[in-house]
């Protein structure tokens, strides 16, 4: 059984075909890298998988379960988690509250209007553990607005991991990071256990190629090349896309 199965997924905005008949199979535990020039349709593909955009045609399945018609929120409950290219967090809250909100999203507690959230010790302990996992345990009570860009990237990852996803979609997790921050995030991603399947969009080839086992190259909404690192690098179409004919 594949972890993530995408079949003939297509989406157009007016006359612009953002994805065209995309087929993608990701095995359980695999580390998959999706690359391609700007406008290739990579983030749109993520948005189609998470349900933030409805596809015109095609299907998405998670461990054999059909997701295509499910609303975005239900997909999170089925084990699909993601980070965003543009950091999308809760700036008025502390790091701890950000991660607590992530955990609460999958808990029945989220509907409770009577309990005090700050007294939910088990939930808060889990949030603290998730922050410690990304090396931010000591900043748990700091407002997000007072943290660096690199720390916010790690909070994004902590929020995604806190949900114990089966498939994790990372949209440019190294974007805008300094050399040291890249090293930290890279170590963090390498430490994620194999029961989490990871699909990552990334432009930083030095970091991403180390991480990925298989690479998918997208161009103008289509998958052009797919294979191991050596196969993709050797393929003339990859060179054509990145360097021109």
């Amino acid at each position, binding site marked *: 059984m594949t972890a993530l199965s995408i079949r003939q997924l297509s989406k157009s905005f007016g006359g612009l075909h953002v994805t065209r008949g995309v087929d993608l199979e990701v095995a359980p535990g695999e580390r998959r890298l999706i690359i391609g020039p700007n406008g290739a349709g990579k983030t749109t593909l993520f948005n189609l998988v998470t349900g933030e955009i409805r596809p015109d045609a095609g299907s998405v399945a998670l461990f054999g379960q059909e997701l295509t018609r499910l609303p975005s929120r239900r997909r999170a409950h089925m084990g699909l988690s*993601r980070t965003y290219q543009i950091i*999308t967090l809760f700036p008025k809250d502390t790091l701890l509250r950000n991660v607590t909100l992530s955990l609460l999203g999958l808990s029945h507690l989220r509907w409770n*209007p009577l309990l005090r*959230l700050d007294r939910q010790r088990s939930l808060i302990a889990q949030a603290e553990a998730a922050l410690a996992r990304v090396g931010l345990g000591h900043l748990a009570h700091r407002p997000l607005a007072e943290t660096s860009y690199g720390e916010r990237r790690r909070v994004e990852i902590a929020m995604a991991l806190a949900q114990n996803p089966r498939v994790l979609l990372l949209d440019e997790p190294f974007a805008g990071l300094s050399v040291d921050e890249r090293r930290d995030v890279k170590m963090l991603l390498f430490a994620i256990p194999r029961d989490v399947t990871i699909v990552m969009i990334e432009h930083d080839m030095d970091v991403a190629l180390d991480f990925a086992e298989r690479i998918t190259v997208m161009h103008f909404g289509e998958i052009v090349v797919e294979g191991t690192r050596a196969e993709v690098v050797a393929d003339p179409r990859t060179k054509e896309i990145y360097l021109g004919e």
Partner: protein
Amino acid sequence: MTATRVGLLAGALVLLTVPLWVPGDYYVSVCSQILIYAIFALGVDVLIGYGGLVSLGHAGLFGIASYAVAYMLAAGIGHIAAVVIALVLALVGTALFAALSLRVTGIGFIMITLALGELLWGLAYRWISVTNGDNGISVANRPAPFGISLNPPAHFYYATLVVFALSVFATWVFIGSPLGASLKGTRDQPRRMNALGYHVWLIRFYACMFSGLLTGIAGILFVYYTQFISPQTLTLTASAEPVLMVISGGSGTLLGPIVGAALVEIVKNIASAYITRWNMLLGAIFVAIVIFMPEGLVPGSRRLVRALLKACAKAPAAAAAEPNSGEPTP
């Protein structure tokens, strides 16, 4: 004892002794009115401050509860049944309001709530067989719970204070709960909340219901307070008033709407006795608040106090750091 607890105790003491130190029944009644509007503003703040949804139609929900009580009392139904049915009707009205207006957010939400509010005002004005049109409906007497008549202003004030305290407590519980935290999340990052597994629409719907409950309670207290209801209570101005209370006091705070309600009601009922164009005064106050404390009076005052404390703490430290200050060097 923390500063918050001291403040709470002082506030409670002031509110409990109002009939003892406020001069005359008129001013005690004004205090009741402030509490009623504070409950109304708290309800509106649940949506504005915590949900990021500005409603310009809440006077319609306020009016549903008020008219329901007045109509049923006029029809000979008892106080308890009238109050319960009024609350149920206010909640049904809120559910319809929410179902229609939550299809959109931002300007769209404001416009739909405004339209629905105007629709209810039109009904109150034109459905004469039920609402008595412009003549309104009078309420003959106030209830007498446990044999205590609420006709004397002080008695009514204490009854209102009890309901107000319960409303503030309920709002505090709601805001601090997981559902309250989820609501704040939908205000700041609805897309992210959706991806985290939250049902954004339903969270907003529940928030609307809680807001409608508080608004309905305020509407019921109001009709007992004035012992009269007319379409004037459902106008656009009446919907804008609690919004202004929330914005001037500080949205997203528990104290802000209460302070805002006090400000508006004091200017409306007390300053208006001395200034003919009191609306202009109120407008000038709002402009001043927006310029000097755009976050509202409560958060703005907190900011000022913090800055003052910081400055006070720095002054002695700077004096101590200055070598031989005031002493001539040998």
